[in-house]
């Protein structure tokens, strides 16, 4: 059976992995897209992700409800976002530096508060078995799709639409592209950025809940391993477009699943290298899509990295 499947099983595993692994990337990158479109960078989302994972897991253990965990993770993420947004509106504060501080703070606080929750097990988030039509266990496993993935997919379409078709979306873009123009229109630039950063934090927190409550589905200090930071790079690669974020998250998820998939079909030589695939992919994509001749298309004009 597995002979017959051969390389197909690798492909199925990669597709399944893409769906499973991509969700945190998707949430963090959508959140960061909102924040960066408003003209600010929040590098602290890695810390928010880890703290979200811890708070979701702890809440689920204590209340026996994974959804309560998701809600608490979202709230905690929002609080981190508000903190970032608040500190950044003080004069002479650099958003990148604050982000790095919050990344360390969020992770550290999560490790500190999360110590008692490494042992107990929490109820996982439910998944929908879209693979019921197949007899193949590999296909069934690959197509067990978590509800949050579907929420994230819908959210990327919604955000893409909202950036063009809602007043709030246009205001975020105006603030991110030209603070002077926004002020001339009477919008409070700092307040818009505060809300945008808070919204980004909420999404990153929910992404963290997925990590601890579904895949890998446990709480420990290595639960994120830098996914929050990679998601920030992914936003740049996706050119601040929520739909492209979805595609990019799938791509990164698939790359992350390559190592385990190859290992499962018996290719053990150098599979550690395949574990590095998402990182190599980040680097390769950023180099491939960069140019010394052209300006970064689509970059919000107020972003400190494009100024």
């Amino acid at each position, binding site marked *: 059976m597995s002979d017959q499947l051969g390389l197909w099983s690798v492909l199925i595993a990669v597709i399944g992995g893409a769906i499973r692994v991509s969700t945190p990337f998707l949430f963090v990158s959508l959140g960061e897209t909102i924040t960066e479109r408003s003209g600010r960078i929040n590098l602290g989302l890695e810390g928010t992700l880890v703290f979200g994972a811890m708070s979701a897991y702890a809440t689920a253990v204590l209340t026996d409800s994974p959804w309560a965990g998701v809600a608490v993770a979202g709230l905690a993420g929002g609080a981190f976002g508000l903190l970032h947004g608040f500190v950044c509106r003080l004069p002479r504060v650099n958003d990148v530096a604050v982000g790095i501080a919050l990344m360390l703070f969020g992770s550290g606080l999560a490790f500190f508060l999360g110590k008692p929750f490494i042992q107990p097990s929490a109820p996982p988030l439910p998944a929908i078995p879209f693979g019921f039509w197949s007899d193949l266990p590999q296909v069934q496993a690959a197509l067990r799709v978590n509800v949050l993935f579907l929420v994230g997919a819908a959210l990327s379409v919604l955000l893409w639409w909202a950036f*063009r*078709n*809602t*007043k*709030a979306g*246009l*205001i975020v*873009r*105006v603030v991110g*592209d*030209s603070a*002077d*123009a*926004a002020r*001339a*229109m*009477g919008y409070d630039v700092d307040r818009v950025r505060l809300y945008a950063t808070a919204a980004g934090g909420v999404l990153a927190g929910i992404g963290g809940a997925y990590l601890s409550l579904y895949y890998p589905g446990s709480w420990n200090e290595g639960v994120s391993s830098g996914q929050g930071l990679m998601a920030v790079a992914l936003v740049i690669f996706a050119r601040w477009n929520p739909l492209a974020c979805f595609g990019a998250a799938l791509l990164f998820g698939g790359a992350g699943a390559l190592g385990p998939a190859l290992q499962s079909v018996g290719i053990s030589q150098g599979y550690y290298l395949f574990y590095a695939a998402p990182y190599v992919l980040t680097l390769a994509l950023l180099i491939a899509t960069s140019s010394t*001749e*052209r*300006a970064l*298309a*689509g970059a*919000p*004009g107020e972003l400190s990295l494009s100024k």
Partner: protein
Amino acid sequence: MEPDAPATGAIGVETIGMTKRFGAFTALDDVSMKIEPGGFHALLGENGAGKSTLVKCVMGFYAPTSGSVLVDGREAEITNPKGAQARGLGMVYQHFTLVPSLTGAENLVISRADAPAILHWSSERAALADFMGRMPFKLNLDRPVAELAAGEKQKLEIVKQLYLKARFLILDEPTSVLTPAEAEEVLGLLRAMTDRGDLSVLMISHKFREVETFARSLSVLRRGKLVGGGAVGVLSRDDMAAMMIGERTTRTIAARLGEPDPEREILRVEKVTATDVSGLRHIAIDDLRVRAREIVGIAGVSGNGQKELADVLGGQIRATGGRVVVAGTPYTGKRVESRSRRVRFIPEEPLRNACAPRMSVAENLAFRAFDRRGDDPQKPPTLWLDKGAMSRRAKDLIARFKVKTASSEAPIATLSGGNVQRAVLARELTDPVDLLIVVNPCFGLDFAAVSEIRNRIVAARNGGAAVLLISEDLDEILELSDRIVVMSEGRLVYETLAAEAEVGAIGQHMAGHH
């Protein structure tokens, strides 16, 4: 207090005893001025005369130290631009306030105070098409503003104010980025709107011809004070100039001495093609030559590739084909090349493109030779900055080029536009120059600074330099050039000797009829 003026038709605005002090400096001193409903009023004055301060007080950007604004005869407390907009006051700034990454349509809709939470683009588009039908400018509202040329942006700024139902429009040097034909079109339309009683206009301008053609009345500010005014046609140009500059003499342009040297070709641009950083604008220059003791003026409407040509010559973008030859050998704009072949480049907006704004005047003046011993370009390289020599040289240049600055250690960004340009010229023109490339050297400067800077350029030419002058100011091109080349859609389309130039023919080629 809600504005209760009628919702359509021109409104009048009056300032009473408007005074604005910034610390000890009085920018505006007791200015009372009245613009009737349906009036077209010009506000003249040199840079720093207080024109911008006055209109910013009216628009609620600054709170005046004392004085008040009457809108339609009633005192109006305007504390921010939004309040001004609610009263039917609109302003078009010298810098653009459009959001670059949004399309024209998005810019218009989001600027409206009553934009709905969810935008129904089909009905918005229909409303915009209807609105644009009443505007004489044809603008593509579906392109991001960043892709529009300066002239189109300026038109969109004006359209935006009319879309926001401005009934009193303030224009801050509205034609500085427009061609003569575009300027006439825009101002003609606005004048027609004031004649119909739909709009009142207050226009800040340096250009007498514009004021005489379109304005009905004018005021002149000097050093923050209202020094005169009245109906257009009563005052002569000499009167207006005298009011603006007070008791100072302005030098006339230095005469061009000697003929271009046909034997010494300094700059040759051969079949150069290039694309700008956005990838949208392409240029293709087949053949352009500048000889010693010659000023070649490149005329053209803003956004027709002049910037890209300047960027290729300055080394900011790489040519995709062809070559630039200076003094017989290929040239790519490297520092070593510009030093050895004595090429000097003065880009537009010098504060942004030729200075480090927060570094001091002395440091900015030293950019050419700071890495040479004793701040002298002829001497060998050195690791250590010679602060003493830099400072001495800076003080000498500041005195010789009459740069007005608090000290040689003040950040260059604190200087006015004219003085920044003087400082840049001081840096670029003190050593012998073989090739000088200048782009819009007098953009936004008052005319005392303008005539001085033009004199310096002509003096460099008389000294034997080849000068390539890229300018969107046709008067400047006509005044300075030995030979005029017109650029349109990225190509050189017309060439004439300045002595035989016909403005009509140049204008036609600028407008794309060739």
